[in-house]
């Protein structure tokens, strides 16, 4: 991507003229599956927006609109024993990993049956059974932690890899630096997806760093990095697949910079008035889901009607999920005091 008239965040020519999506070896069934995850990602967030407007969401709501291809494409490239450390915009990765929409709804609505039992919010939950590590809010912290997850794989001679995400803003943190450098030195199987989406809250990347590509950060660690169109699910998938294979094969950590754009404010309360409208328009034309649907129909892998049917089916399933979540109880107060410590090998007395 080169700098266009809209400045460094200009996505360049619109996709109709930019040509096809990346080459892939994925077959029809898999591509249709990708499509369902993408749609599910977006539709779950649409439901969340509704719930938010109805006052059902407790706290803030974060959206990955326009960035779904990144979470979905990358998570889809993983094997069953690989471990993901997602951030709050990586809903798609959780879904691909088997998280049910109702788990997400109950999290956002602070219900007692949510994955954290109401103890933590939004996508702050994990489950090692499904290869998921919860983030903390402090950006960057997951990079060293996931380097440690990867270290454990090598230590125990298991062949899983660790994958995590970091925003353009997150790459400015000390933890990103320490984690990346440590991962490189220890040569652990870590894959980092660096999401270059133009903004960190209200701060444009140009006020976040004096470099154009996040990939330049990776060079400082001797970590190979590829730059990929983050709004092309196939490109993300293929790049991740290769990076994961390299990491699994012992080539040490790998980074992928995905170029994309945050299509909503930082969170639902933020109207993103600081984002130039033309930039949003330019990126809207590259919507990753619509692009993928055009690709599917253009290549004859699906008809528009089939895609619509798939979407409708998701909607029906979500009706059930939302209702179940709405019916879920709030947690009992006494739970607040429980669970700080893991019961030890020695009872306190």
């Amino acid at each position, binding site marked *: 991507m080169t700098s266009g008239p809209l400045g460094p965040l200009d996505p360049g020519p619109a996709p109709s003229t930019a040509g096809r999506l990346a080459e892939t070896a994925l077959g029809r069934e898999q591509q249709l599956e990708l499509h369902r995850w993408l749609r599910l990602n977006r539709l779950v967030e649409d439901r969340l927006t509704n719930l938010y407007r109805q006052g059902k969401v*407790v*706290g803030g709501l974060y959206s990955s609109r326009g960035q779904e291809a990144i979470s979905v494409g990358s998570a889809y490239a993983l094997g069953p024993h690989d471990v993901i450390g997602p951030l709050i915009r990586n809903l798609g990765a959780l879904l691909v990993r088997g998280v049910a929409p109702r788990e997400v709804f109950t999290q956002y609505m*602070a*219900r*007692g049956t949510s994955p*954290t039992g*109401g*103890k*933590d*919010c939004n996508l*702050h939950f994990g489950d090692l059974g499904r290869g998921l590590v919860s983030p*903390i*809010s*402090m*950006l*960057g912290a997951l990079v060293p932690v996931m380097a440690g997850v990867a270290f454990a794989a090598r230590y125990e001679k298991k062949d899983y890899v660790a994958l995590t995400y970091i925003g353009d*803003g*997150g790459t*400015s*943190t*000390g*933890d990103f630096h320490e984690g990346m450098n440590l991962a490189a030195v220890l040569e652990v199987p870590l894959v980092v997806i660096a999401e270059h989406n133009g903004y*960190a*809250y*209200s*701060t444009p990347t140009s*006020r*976040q*760093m004096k470099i154009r590509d996040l990939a330049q950060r990776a060079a400082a660690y001797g970590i190979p990095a590829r730059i990929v169109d983050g709004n092309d699910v196939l490109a993300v998938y293929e790049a991740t697949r290769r990076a994961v294979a390299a990491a699994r094969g012992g080539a040490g950590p790998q980074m992928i910079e995905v170029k994309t754009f945050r299509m909503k404010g930082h969170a639902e309360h933020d109207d993103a008035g*600081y984002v130039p409208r033309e930039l949003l328009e330019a990126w809207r034309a590259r919507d990753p889901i619509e692009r993928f649907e055009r690709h599917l129909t253009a290549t004859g892998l699906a008809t528009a009607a089939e895609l619509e049917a798939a979407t409708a089916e998701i909607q029906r399933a979500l009706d059930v999920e939302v209702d179940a979540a709405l019916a879920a109880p*709030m*947690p*009992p*107060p*006494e*739970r*607040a*005091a429980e*669970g*700080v410590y893991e019961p030890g090998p020695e009872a306190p007395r």
Partner: protein
Amino acid sequence: MSAEITLLEAVSQGLRDEMRADPRVFLIGEDLGRYGGAFRVTAGFLDEFGPERVVDTPISESGFAGAAIGAAMMGLRPVVEFQFIDFMANAFDMIVNFAGTNRYRWGQAVPVVFRGPSGGRVSGSAFHSANPEAFYHRAPGLKIVYPATVEDAYGLIRAAIRDPNPVLFFEHKYLYRRIKGTLPAGLETVPIGRARVARAGRDATVVTWAAMVHVALEAAERLAAEGIELEIVDLRTIKPMDEETVLASVARTNRALVISEEPYSGSVAGDVAARIAEKAFWHLDAPLVRVTCLDTPVPYSPPLEDAYLPNADKLIARVRELLAS
């Protein structure tokens, strides 16, 4: 008399007035300028003071805390905003080890303010609800300020900026828009290091600060209906602590409770209680009482957070126990 403003507006006005009065004062942090800060404390500042004095930074708390320390040594008066005070944890070393020790080690003052929204009861969960006073109370060389009222928020932020030492200034986000008040004409600063008797009473002293001042006042109102009169001491400054005001109150009431929004273990409430037990022991007619949060991270869901936090009911129950003992 001036118009009612919120606690948030008081902080904002204090910052603005100090920036108008002293060109050395500048703000540094995330999303302060065009956006006006996550809570809009600095809304409009960019227009008035320009980007040189309202400095947006990359996400690097230790980096910009450090830069503020450097600038402060050179004679500027930096005010650092942490978007949530929780993220001050990422600048812990810089604040405790660099800012806190500098004056003692080689004589060079570091007049910097570290401020931001703190506190719970907003369903912010573990990382957006911090009350970090106890993490920093042990650090020599820092001052810690935590106002509960409009007047104090305004006067103390100005005093913090003028103070030649590193000052941590916490702004309880639950109070931000809920607490209103007016500023006395001509008010410039409220002195750091002095507690305030927020309510006079004879039956027991309640030492507290920040949001818990209002919880204590609510409890006092309700108990007053039964003829029980609580005296409430609002510390305002945690460090250095105004023992004198606390001990004088306990000497009058002979009973003391400390209520604070922190876990029980390692709380500043413990330090306050210890000082009373050491220095006003002979005035005490009954055990010290601490009313704190649970010893857990801050939980997210409202029923859990309610169980976690102290409130007027819990305080009243402990007061009754105490008076019965």
